[in-house]
């Protein structure tokens, strides 16, 4: 969903990519509250933590966080090019 020129936070592995579109992210922090191991709020924008242990991340929880974001700012891609 994110266009390349939009400010975006990106994290993940070869097979899992999480993006937060910073043009719409409004810092409501629902993602940080539901998945504090993955998301962290810095200056009112959700970022992806540098120290995420991706092997332990609950992928269903990531999808729930994306669905619960009031700004539709989060996208979760589980294989290259395939958005879920």
């Amino acid at each position, binding site marked *: 969903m994110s266009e390349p020129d939009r400010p975006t936070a990106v994290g993940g592995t070869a097979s899992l990519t999480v993006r937060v579109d910073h*043009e*719409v*992210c*409004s*810092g*409501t*922090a*629902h993602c940080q*509250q539901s998945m504090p191991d993955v998301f962290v*709020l*810095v*200056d*009112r924008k959700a970022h992806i933590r540098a120290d995420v242990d991706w092997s332990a991340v609950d992928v269903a929880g990531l999808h729930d966080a994306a669905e*619960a974001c*009031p*700004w*539709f700012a989060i996208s979760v891609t589980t294989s290259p090019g395939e958005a879920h």
Partner: protein
Amino acid sequence: MAQYQPVVENLDPPWEAIAADRRECPVAHVSLPEQEYFQITRYDLVTEVLRNHKVFSNIHGTTVAPESISEEEQVLAFADPPRHTKQRRLLVSAFSPARVDAIGPHIQQVADDYVDLLPPDGGTFELTTALGAALPVQIICEMLGVPLDDRDDFRRWSEISERAASVADRSAFAADLEAFSAYLTNLVEERQRALLTTGAGPDDLITAIVKAEVDGERFTSNEVVAIIRLLLSAGNTTTTTLIGNLVKAIEEHPAEKAKLLADLEGLSMSAVDEGMRYDGPIHGLFRTALTDTEIGGVAIPQGCRVFNVYGAASHDPSVFDQPDDFVIDRDFDLLPSHLGFGMGIHHCLGSNLARMEARVAIETLYRRLPGLRIADDFVPQQYPGAIFRTYGQLQLQYDGPVGPRTSV
């Protein structure tokens, strides 16, 4: 038995009664002659309801009187997914931080224009009339593409829509609500005709909504009207009230005011969020259980209504230190969200705009008006009602001379 009964009793400040309920019965069964609901006052339980939008629905109304909302009028805060999701998706970019930042300088100009109208050598003025209402109405009218000549009517209709939301019997407001709908229908149909005949329309939010296609279909004019009416009624008076409640809180806390004046631009943002937490315009909203469920160990039968007291959650001592104090420099990045803008999929769509308008208003007032204070002998009166916390009017006074504009 709930001590706090905002539908029948006007308590100001309400925090003591709310704290007693939060301790003793955080999910309180309230039974009134025309209303029956469960009132929730604990942060964790209010947020549990708000996150569970699959069980707790918005389509039976979110204000005091239960409603049967027709499908066409099920928009945004009056809709559930998937309908809600499709509509909101179309609107988030219009109210995004990036878009709001882009119009920030214009908001500053408009705020300066209104302050320019005040007596240059000091005097008194009523905040709501002079700035609090005028600013958000002008900005949303510009965004929507509503002619500026109509904005006084808009403000009145918007206020009436909100007043109607707070009461069980709306018959006194019926004529105005109908006039508002007729006006909006005309505005939308103009855009739809322009789109049909020329394939385009003015570059405004109404045209964008009229043009938007969801699953290959466009909104009907009634749906567009319902969306616009909701944007206005959810956004205008609430922002006005945010500004008024915040100025009142600042004036009633001299030590916090001194901190703000010493670092106006550094603290204006946390001041706005603290204003929303401490005394936000929307005190609580209702949901309706679609199935039998439970909250905090209390059974909620299907069809029963739940009153989420956002103000109570935002004053929960297990989440916020000194919850009943106004602390202007809280670091909200490090705190769980206050509920001034709600939580979950229905989190206030206009929150970025409201924050910007309130921040600009506060900065402009305190930068340009020396000795700003509540007018001598003026005692703010809290309006009755369960949904909104508002004083309606706030008489202020200042010494002059009015400082220079921030913007050109």
